[in-house]
């Protein structure tokens, strides 16, 4: 048994948690003292607290579970930071990417059955069925979905991400983003223009289906020509980095990124053999939608985080996704599992005529941006965004600073001007989320809870603690085996 002679020779410096009355002796002695504002970790259960403590790393004990996790996390962080997402292609149809899709519809968030889906998700499913001509009327489409005639699966399990309802059907064209470092690819559907009435918000009216067809026939071929005209594809990280310096968080604000994308494709498009009319139409579409870049942002983040997934022991979150009912997270070291908790209603501003009573709980795969250290984590880059929650620009800085407490690193590729160009916090560690009782913040749009009503506002939401608590439990169990 070792003693600790060093204890007695050092000057004592104390961290105190619990009863603050006990600090007085230490204070009187003049010894350095840090008082914690302690509160029970995670969801407040002692069992979780104890599990979590098992997962803490120890520099003098390389074999303990926590140290293994720390090593795995370092590997994960390296993979995140070295990722090179490049927009390389447009897949004309999802079925090109996954030839045996059949009657599968991919959706946002963790797995969910038809009966459990929220209104917008159901609406989008109907829309997709109509778009695929698997049914001829919404009624028929609903019967088909309810009868089990459709296979549902999360986008995330197919290397894809979809905004809001995130429905991907076999005919839909997809952005293809390749992580040049690892060679893995990620996919995302294109943003529909057309204001509120879009499939991603659960609308399925004829003009929505028309809009999807237009994407398939005009936008996709044009952009395919544009991207193939760019030698080696379009590297997305520099573009996103630059847009952070232009007030974007590349989640809820993509104004600058879309502009930079526009600039990047214009020349290539004009040089292509595509007709001037189609080029004009495409440029008009991209030019009119400040959020157009979001799909690419999400795909870039997905390509980055997928490369970081599956490192045994790692406690880093590689996906946060919401299906409008639940929020699910995936953790690098816990491959094949979703940890879910109930989704909250976003807090923020509403469009005229709507209120919180109309809001659907949080939905969409777009939280992949926060998972990759963007979105609300990079809020300091986008002070205009905090207006959604009635905050001041100082609050924007606070979001970015606070999220650094639940992440393991900073991304030097994504820097925040107003914080003197420090990197955005990246690599959400489920241990830290639970230990700090601080839930990751997500910037999001708010969907109407009825299908087809579209976007009604925007704001911020926090991922439920339960996901992270369960993940900690699973890590402790896995590690103990």
């Amino acid at each position, binding site marked *: 048994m070792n003693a600790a002679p060093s204890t007695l020779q050092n000057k004592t410096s104390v961290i105190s948690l619990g009863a603050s009355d006990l600090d007085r002796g230490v204070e009187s002695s003049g010894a350095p003292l840090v008082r914690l504002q302690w509160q029970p970790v995670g969801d407040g259960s002692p069992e979780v607290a104890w599990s979590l403590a098992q997962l803490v790393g120890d520099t003098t004990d390389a074999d303990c579970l926590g140290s293994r996790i720390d090593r795995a996390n370092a590997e994960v962080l390296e993979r995140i930071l070295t990722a090179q997402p490049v927009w390389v292609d447009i897949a004309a149809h999802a079925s090109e990417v996954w030839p045996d899709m059949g009657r599968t519809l991919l959706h946002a968030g963790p797995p969910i059955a038809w009966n459990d889906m929220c209104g917008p998700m159901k609406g989008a499913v109907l829309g997709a069925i109509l778009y695929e001509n698997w049914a001829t009327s919404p009624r028929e489409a609903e019967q088909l979905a309810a009868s089990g005639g459709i296979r549902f699966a999360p986008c995330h399990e197919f290397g894809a991400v979809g905004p809001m309802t995130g429905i991907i059907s076999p005919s839909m064209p997809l952005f293809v983003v390749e992580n040049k470092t690892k060679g893995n690819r990620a996919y995302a559907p294109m943003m529909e223009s057309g204001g509120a009435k879009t499939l991603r918000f659960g609308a399925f009216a004829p003009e929505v289906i028309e809009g999807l067809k237009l994407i398939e026939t005009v936008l996709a071929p044009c952009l395919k020509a544009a991207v193939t005209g760019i030698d080696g594809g379009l590297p997305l990280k520099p573009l996103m980095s630059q847009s952070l310096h*232009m*007030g974007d968080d590349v989640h809820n604000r993509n*104004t*600058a990124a879309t502009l930079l994308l*526009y600039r990047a494709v*214009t*020349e290539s498009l004009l040089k292509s053999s595509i007709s001037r009319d189609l080029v004009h139409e495409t440029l008009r579409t991209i030019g009119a939608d400040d959020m157009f870049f979001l799909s690419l942002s999400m795909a870039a983040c997905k390509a980055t985080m997928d490369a970081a997934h599956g490192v045994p022991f790692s406690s880093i979150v590689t996906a946060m996704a919401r299906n409008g009912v639940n929020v699910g997270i995936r953790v690098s070291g816990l491959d094949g599992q979703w940890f879910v908790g109930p989704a909250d209603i976003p807090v923020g501003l509403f469009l005229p005529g709507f209120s919180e009573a109309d809001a659907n709980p949080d939905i969409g795969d777009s939280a992949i941006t926060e998972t990759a250290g963007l979105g609300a984590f990079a809020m300091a880059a986008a002070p205009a965004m905090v207006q959604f929650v009635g905050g001041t620009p100082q609050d924007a800085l606070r979001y970015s600073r606070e999220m650094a407490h639940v992440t393991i690193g900073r991304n030097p590729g994504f820097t925040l001007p107003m914080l*003197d160009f420090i990197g955005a916090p990246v690599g959400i560690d489920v241990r830290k989320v639970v230990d700090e009782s601080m839930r990751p913040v997500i910037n999001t749009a708010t969907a109407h809870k009825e299908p087809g009503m579209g976007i009604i506002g925007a704001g911020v939401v926090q991922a439920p603690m339960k996901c992270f608590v369960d993940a900690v439990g699973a890590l402790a169990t896995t590690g103990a085996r």
Partner: protein
Amino acid sequence: MKLIEDANQQALGRILEGEPRLIDIVPARQLIPGLRERMILHAGPPISWDRMCGPMRGAVAGAIVFEGWAQDLPTATKLAASGEIEFHPNHHFGAVGPMTGMTTMSMPLFVVENARFSNRAYCAINEGLGKVMRFGGNDASVLKRLAWLRDVFGPTLGKAIRAAGGVDLKSIVARGLSMGDELHQRNLACSSVFLREIAPWMARTSTDNAVLAECLAFIGQNDQFFLNIAMAMGKAITDPANGIRGSTIVTTMCRNGTDFGIRVSGLGEQWFTAPVEMPEGLYFAGYSEKDANPDMGDSAIVETIGLGGFAMAAAPAVAGFVGAGAPSEAGNFTRSMGEITVAQNPEWTIAAMDFAGVPTGIDIRLVVDSGVVPVINTGIAHREPGIGQVGAGVVKAPLACFQQAIVAIAKDLGVS
């Protein structure tokens, strides 16, 4: 004094009410009737050849060759020194020019019209980076690019602008401010927004794919493209505010590499000058303060309307140039400029300042009283002609100009 306050409100109103639109690109001689052979317009207050700094002389020589008034640069220099060439400030002819600010008869100029007051202002097209005339560059590559701008780019873009029915500028600036531009050192967002506005029209009006691609690439690869448009806009906005008796609002700030000059609304065309200061800032790899030329150019017109250094809070990245302050302190520049201005411009707001408008309407009384002088974001030219830009930073307007103006306006108003 009520007279002054009223005059200032009037001047401010004219600045805020401006409706600048980019309406055309036209060769200078068609726009400026007085612009003759062997006449060169330059940046800043009036200056004679013998007092011109290196880059200005280099640019003058280049411009002479470009216009064909001399065969080569040595001859051109001799010609300039001989007194055969007439020099005037751009500002005397409704024009502005960045850095050396050369304007000669065959150069194509942006035309910005202030629809509210029906006045027009002009500025040459931004040449891009590298060796350029505005930094005193004058070799063959510089002159070749100027010729291309004159013969190809100007006409092409002009056609598109006309087809588009002109381009509203105020909203582009507003967008730019929300995307990290302060419109002097950083014009990336505005250049991109401009490209987005004009590209479809270029596609529609140009028949030659190669020319079209070349022109688009020229705009697309030049992050500062919009600066010259913004300068013409600044001139178009400030000109109607000039000449209001009693007004202490600054309507012009500019530099010629030797002197800094201001003009004040209540004092009309009168210049108040003082030796220009050296910019403080960061230098490109391989250069240092030793290489720098004192500050130069009409571009400070953007500060005169509340942009550039006044809108620093919108562009923390630019604040990094200053060297002294951290980017997070960019807001302090804007707040300080708020002390010497009479209003905020509600149409141009800054998210990082909780959507406060840019400080607008520099009052010489406030400047002299507080000792806070306008800060101007600027590029730094090499002191030798023909080398070009070596860095970027900020420069302070010399207090002496403002003090002279105070004395002059006191005299004008019979106060002593």
